[in-house]
């Protein structure tokens, strides 16, 4: 069984069907990039995986565990908030707008969840936090507040914060879209390294070079459905579907003539 196994996932917001039956499998250690125009449902799908949105239909399993429900003899029982929180612990998430806690320093941001959720000792949590800060190249800024960091630095701290919970799976929701162009590289570099270390990652992104170089599978979504999925050399290099071709050529022309 793959680490993430999503079957026929549907989701509507006020009669507006955003996801129309998404299937997706992600194996352990795989990197999957979700591409597609805005409004295609890729961010919503990502948020469904760790239940920031509840799904209307279909099922999502992460590590053989059905997300959000207990299945007893074919009947589904909604999980309690506490149980949902426990499921989320295994999944790290990085947001477009970083969402660091502004009243806490970089180090305190990373230490918070291991201390509060897992009840780790101060020493253990701080040691791992410092290692993670070092890994994202920000050990010297451990006492800075988010407002004192650049966007790229904030996003690197946010990645370290998610990693501090030692997740099985990392979700990235357009992690570089809110950054100035010159800061995109440092965040992508951290993500590349994470992928090389074998982390399972699902990344919603518009960074074609990242998707081409790092992803094992690229999924192109449009209008709430998966239009095309496969290795990047096929989907990006030789797209079969006209909607994929149109999206990629639009993206390319924007890059060449910004």
């Amino acid at each position, binding site marked *: 069984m793959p680490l993430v196994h999503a079957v026929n996932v549907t989701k509507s917001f006020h009669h507006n069907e955003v996801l129309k039956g998404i299937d997706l499998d992600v194996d352990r250690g795989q990197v999957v990039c979700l591409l597609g125009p805005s409004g295609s449902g890729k961010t919503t799908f990502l948020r469904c995986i760790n239940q920031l949105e509840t799904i209307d239909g279909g099922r999502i399993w992460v590590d053989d565990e059905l997300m959000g429900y207990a299945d007893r003899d074919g009947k589904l029982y909604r999980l309690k908030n506490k149980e949902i929180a426990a499921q*989320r612990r295994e999944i*790290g998430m990085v947001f477009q707008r970083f*969402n660091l806690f502004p009243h806490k320093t970089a180090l305190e941001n990373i230490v918070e969840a291991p201390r509060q*959720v897992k009840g780790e000792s101060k020493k253990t949590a701080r040691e791992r936090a410092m290692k993670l800060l070092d890994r994202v190249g920000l050990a010297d800024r451990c006492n800075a507040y988010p407002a004192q960091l650049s966007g790229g630095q904030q996003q690197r701290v946010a990645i370290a914060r998610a990693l501090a*919970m030692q997740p099985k799976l990392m979700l990235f929701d357009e992690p570089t879209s809110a950054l100035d162009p010159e800061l995109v590289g440092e965040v992508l570099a951290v993500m590349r390294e994470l992928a090389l270390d074998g982390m399972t990652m699902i990344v919603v992104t518009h960074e074609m070079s990242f998707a081409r170089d790092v992803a094992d599978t690229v999924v192109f979504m449009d209008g709430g459905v998966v239009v095309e999925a496969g290795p990047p050399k096929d989907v990006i290099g030789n797209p079969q579907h006209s909607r994929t071709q149109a999206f990629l050529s639009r993206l390319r022309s924007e890059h060449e003539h910004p």
Partner: protein
Amino acid sequence: MSTETEARPADAAPDRPGAINAVPVRHPGRWVAIAVIVVLVAMLVHLLVTNKAFDWSFVFEAMNQQPVINGFLKGTLLVTVLSMVVGVGGGVVLAVMRLSDNPILSGVSWVFTWFFRSIPRYILLFTMGTLGILFPQGIAFGIPFDWKIIDWLGMSGDWRFFTLDANQVFTGLVAGVIGLGLSEAAYMAEIARAGIMSVDPGQAEAAEALGMSRGKVMRRVVLPQAMRVIVPPTGNETIAMLKDTSLLLAVPVIGELFYQLQSIGSTYYKTFPIAVAATLYYLAATSVLMVGQYFLERHFGRGFGNKAPRAARPAGAGGA
């Protein structure tokens, strides 16, 4: 480096505009205003010093009487602190209830706020002092409707653990603190709600994504950030509460600052110096509160920009 120095326009290039040394705009109006204010201040000082009605020695003597000092410490300061503890605690709980998904909790919170905001504090305190009449047999703690249940089961006796005398609960400072505290909770509920809603929803999402429970998300992430918005109006509320303790007279509470001052005033037929004495007490207490608020704002403002904690000064912090 030397070439760069030579190239500086102001020094080396007389044909190009150099450093600006302009005549500043004159402000004759300011000097007129200063003159007017100096004269007015001089008149005020003259009035304070020479007018016999102030009777400063009587003012300070009245302020120094033990019942007055007790009235200030217990009736004003202690009641303010206790009522604000009840008010802030209750207000935060009411705000969380109001914003919860549970329609019952949300409705209860709305009704509470509606009820206690509707009653003038003076009348509420008067009512608190008379509530004892509702419970002539005292307020008992035990199993609700125990006499009915016992009746059904054909047993006798009662299931009550202890009983308070209602006339002792709804009297004096206790009634005052309950009344002021509940009234304050209704106002603080709205302030706390505004504070909670001011926090970016992404903050709660990030905390939830880390696996934190709802309670932890509220306590560790949302409320500390909401405090930045909650503290300034709460300072206002505290100062208003300090002054509203003078309404304790409605309960009635006689161990209160202004009542004690007034009784001295009526004994010696001196009303005006008493008003001055009360003003001085309230000025002093409010000044101390404003300093406290400054430090609270600095604490909860941390992380919000480099200058944010230092930008708020006590004078501005008092709030409009």
